[in-house]
């Protein structure tokens, strides 16, 4: 799966959970850059992304995730499993 396709799917989860599309997701985007992306919505987004890709993130990866770039590479790793 290409990075662009992954990003589009991620974006859908964010829009669904945060109920707005007032953000621009790229590899360096962090929680600070997106309105409403906080501790509570983070877990909901993560769960939604897991469903979309039919994967299960590992805690070790989740706790070191700093930005969207990290999220994409973790998804790639999980898909390849």
């Amino acid at each position, binding site marked *: 799966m290409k990075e662009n396709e992954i990003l589009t799917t991620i974006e859908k989860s964010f829009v669904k959970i945060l109920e707005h599309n007032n953000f621009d997701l790229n590899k360096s985007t962090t*929680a*600070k850059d997106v309105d409403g992306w*906080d*501790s*509570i919505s*983070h*877990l909901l987004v993560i769960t939604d992304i897991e469903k979309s890709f039919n994967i299960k993130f*590992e*805690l*070790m990866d*989740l*706790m*070191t*995730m700093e930005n969207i770039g990290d999220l994409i590479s973790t998804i790639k790793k999980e898909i390849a499993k």
Partner: protein
Amino acid sequence: MNFVNRLYNSFVLNSKSNAFCIDDTFYTYEELLNYIVRIRKIINRNIESNERIIGLVTNNDIETYAAIFSLWIEGKAYIPINPFTPKARNIDILKSTDVVSVLDSSKTPIRLASFNIIKTLSSYSSHDDAPFDAVPYRGNNIAYVLFTSGSTGAPKGVPICFKNLDTLIAELDIDEAYKLKPSDRCLQMYELTFDASLTALLPSLLVGACSYTVPSNAIKYFYIIKLLHRYELTVMKMVPSIINYLRPYFSEIKAPSVRYSIFGGEKLYEDVVQEWIKCVPNSKVLNHYGPTEFTVCSGYYAYKFNKKNRSHNGVLSIGKPFKNVDYIIVDEENRELKDNQEGELCLSGNQLTQGYWNNNKLNEQAFFLHKTASGITKKFYKTGDICFRDKDGYYLYVGRKDFQLKIGGYRVELGEIEYHIKSHSSAKFKNLVVMGVKSQNNTIELVLVIESSQFDIDDLFSFLKENLVDYMIPRRTVFIDSFPYTKNGKLDRKEIRKMIR
């Protein structure tokens, strides 16, 4: 010896040990002392000696922590000002307490016109060796003022004096079940606007252990696990919602280093504790209870491994009061109730605040004099928590008597949120109600229910974000054409709950 002197002695005695780990940088007690010396100089240069209550911008850095101890040594109080809280709310809080000066370690200091903003950044010098010369200790001086949600729309101030804190620390000292060591590595996950930060910090600093802090913009539950994994923490005080969030990942957490797992600030469910203890097999589990008005903590329940625990509706007991604290359960006329009878839990003892800041009306409602079984008349505080005492003297939490909720440990008065919604100009609806709805992972989600046909709520929510702290903003909005009412003409909250599911 008072706790401010004890803290100082501990800092000197443990000067070569680490006091803090902030953003992966360690600070020794000696470095902490040097920051304190510098910040005391800044305070003395910039703040009048009769100015007793000082605002403190709560950044996650050594200057902010050092500023707390500097203010205490100077006999002054701090009011924590969270830079992420809406400006209007921060200004209200500072004005209501007549604060003039605000200490700020931010690179770009907070913009609060009409206040004296004093920068504390880069206040470190290793060559400063000014002697410790404390301002005479006065137990009745205020040590901090915290603001909690108020049902009338304005937050209410709770002043806590040095004597209150001394009493709390004395209670923790005599407790054999909870003893920290200099080698302990302790979690400090709380915002400084939350008084649980003090029971996370003070026991650690008093023995010369190291506190590991969590930045406020981090996804807290994952950051905590990162700290736990990287530094093998031994003492973790947390709000229960942290383990509620982490529950799906428990099978990946193995932390034999943890000696104490302490919870406080919210209902603690027994089932999640049963699973959590598998992650921390060598840990004691304590469930702390106590309102801000009673200086953080008034008692606790120690979880029993492999034995039957005391709980009510799945919520673990809040245990028994500290040795010098009185608990009573009263009815609506403040008459003491018997064992197993549900009523309002009231507290008395030297940890009790002198009363809400400039709020006589609320003080008359919240405090009362009562003759105890020993024949002594004491001042009691009405917590608003409905509880009962079982036959063995353990207290069990049942629910709230009012519309206060706990979100991530923070007290939220639904009335305060409703007040702000109603005051917004776009408020063209018949009625509204804000409700706390339990989500799948045992956490509470705020839902705004509006009696109206659907309309655009963007303006309303921008307004709320300017006036309310983020945890007070409803996560979901539901429109209902007409609200259901009970036979008595009261809003049927139970029915609304069903409708918004």
